């Protein structure tokens, strides 16, 4: 079964249309990279998938595991296995990372009819996951993202991902602001989480990340739409030629459509 199907999605914030007919289909086990220039709507896509409600969906549909995603509250989506790694992870002062994660995991487990995990089992489980992203154990007891370096925040997002064990993970520019070592740690984490049941949407500016996380499909996004899709060679082409050729093509097509109509 298709994991995610987005059809002709139009989204606006206040008076500005940001997504203008975006379509995308993702199957279990696949890794899709979404690339595009600033302002093309990449992060909007991520936020809309996670259910941020300042975005107004004017038309189109999103089906996740066969269900209408738009109808679901953000926490329902999370409990159904959708995960967003934030571009700018949020700080929650005074709430320890480990406490936060335990509450999150147990909310998800409860939803799935599983028993809540007790403190001891959870610690054992979490320590295993920490190794994967080479996180220092002191970050468990520190308040969520407070005082974390940029790299620590991003690694923490991947750590959350590994603990919450989602079926669809959306990574919103997780690579931005990472040095090469951190990038490698994050990529290794993601690669070890790849499985036939799990799919990824990796949103990025740079081809660099895709040297480490090899995508099945690459999509180029311009002006709120996916205008070109291909294999990993598309990423290299975008790296080489930039987005101007796509932008020109979109502008020409829009002009033709306007005059032709």
């Amino acid at each position: 079964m298709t994991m995610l199907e987005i059809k002709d999605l139009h989204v606006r914030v206040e008076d500005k249309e940001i997504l203008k007919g975006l379509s995308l289909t993702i199957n279990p086990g696949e890794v899709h990279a979404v690339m595009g220039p600033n302002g093309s709507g990449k992060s909007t896509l991520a936020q809309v998938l996670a259910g941020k409600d300042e975005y107004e969906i004017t038309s189109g549909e999103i089906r996740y595991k066969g269900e209408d995603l738009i109808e679901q509250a953000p926490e329902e989506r999370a409990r159904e296995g959708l995960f967003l790694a934030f571009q700018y992870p949020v700080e929650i002062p005074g709430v320890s990372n480990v406490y936060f994660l335990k509450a999150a995991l147990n909310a998800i487990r409860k939803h799935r009819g599983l028993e809540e995990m007790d403190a001891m089992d959870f610690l054992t489980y979490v320590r295993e996951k920490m190794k994967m992203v080479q996180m220092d154990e002191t970050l468990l007891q520190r308040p969520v993202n407070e005082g974390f370096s940029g790299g620590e925040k991003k690694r923490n997002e991947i750590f959350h991902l590994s603990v919450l064990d989602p079926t669809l993970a959306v990574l919103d520019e997780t690579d931005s602001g990472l040095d090469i070592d951190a990038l490698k740690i994050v990529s290794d984490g993601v690669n070890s989480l790849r499985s036939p049941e799990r799919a990824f949407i990796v949103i990025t500016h740079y081809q660099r990340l895709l040297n480490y996380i090899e995508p099945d499909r690459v999509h180029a996004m311009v002006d709120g739409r996916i205008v070109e899709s291909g294999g990993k060679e598309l990423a290299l082409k975008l790296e080489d030629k930039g987005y101007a050729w796509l932008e020109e093509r979109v502008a020409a097509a829009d002009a033709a459509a306007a005059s032709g109509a």
Partner: protein
Amino acid sequence: MPPETQDVLDERVGRAYEAGFVTDVEQDTFEPGLDEGVIARLSALKQEPQWMLDWRLKAYQNWLKMHEPTWANIKYEPIDYQSISYYSAPKKSLNSLDEVDPEILATYEKLGIPLLEQQMLAGVAVDAVFDSVSVATTFKAKLAEAGVIFCSMSEAIRDHGDLVRQYLGSVVPRGDNFFAALNSAVFSDGSFVYVPKGVRCPMELSTYFRINASNTGQFERTLIIAEEGAHVSYLEGCTAPMRDENQLHAAVVELYAAEGATIKYSTVQNWYPGDPETGKGGIFNFVTKRGVAERRAKISWTQVETGSAITWKYPSVILKGDDSVGEFYSVALSKAYQQADTGTKMIHVGKNTTSTIISKGISAGFGQNTYRGQVKILRDAENARNFSQCDSMLIGDKCGAHTFPYIDVQNPTAQMEHEASTSKVGEDQLFYCNSRGIDTEDAVGMIVNGFCKEVFNELPMEFAVEARKLLEISLEGSVG
């Protein structure tokens, strides 16, 4: 903020008061009204010595010349002091727990404070004040062994008259302020603690207050004396039944810490805040709390104020001796139509004195929360240090947070640090929690609990649990 989030917030902060029930116990209650005759009757009923009556009457004379303060950032209908009854007590006087009215015990059961169980399990001595008279005092024997006196103020006046006479009013004078003067004239009962030189009190001392009689002012008077090198931790926790009339509460607490002594005073206050729809009927809480710290002594106030319609309260420390330490840790929550004007005063008199102020104000609904604090460094207070941190959190867009820090430094060697912040329970924080599977209600609880953590960490364990419960939060830190 999206409407559904606002709904959850509204529902959460508007939750009805859960401790609202009334116990049906026969009461001796004075007719409303206050004059010298009422005070004489009160004093006689309590079999007080002449000096006590004289002291009360002088306080009454002070009070008559005083005016109700108006500087606080609170609004309320004028209080008619002649429409209040100044004494209410259970009818029989009792000697032991066996004689306690089963209904009263049942009240404590409902509040989750089973006295007998507490004796056996928790190791907490409880001087339970039911309205105005202590009806049960426990663990006396064990405390007596250590030489600690822990009893009701009425008993103390009868049995330890010299001590009471020496210290009563020495920290908060009779005519200190309008409400303290009123309390001095008509105080009904309260707790008395005396810890002798060098003694570490063998257990946490705890008093549960419960205002019960309709339309009866409750005027506790508490006095804690820690002699040289002594150490005592005192807990005060309160809930009240639901009533329509405003109930006036004007307590006075005096702490005296002799050289090298430590007094830790913790409060969880959850009195009826008033009708959540109209704000009517809640407790008016006008409290004067102050401590004097002698050389190398330490006084620490921790309070979690979630109840009352009006809170007017500034637990203070006079850092009289050199190297003395004063601390104030506070969480004040104002929801629905609650108003809180609270803070502290740290008066640095001695050299090398240190004070710390951590205040967390949370406003929700139409609540108004004011931090008002004064740090005063007197001329001779060489090398005094103060650290103040006042944080406010807003939930929703109809509430308010205000901060009035007064700083008066008369010695140039002082080191002062002040930090303040105001934050909203942010949509971003809520969305982040939601996107990890945590629903909005739990997320708000978690964020608020995190905000208050520095203060909760100061509370004795059992109180910290109660405080978190009060903010309806699942257990923080149960892992790891």
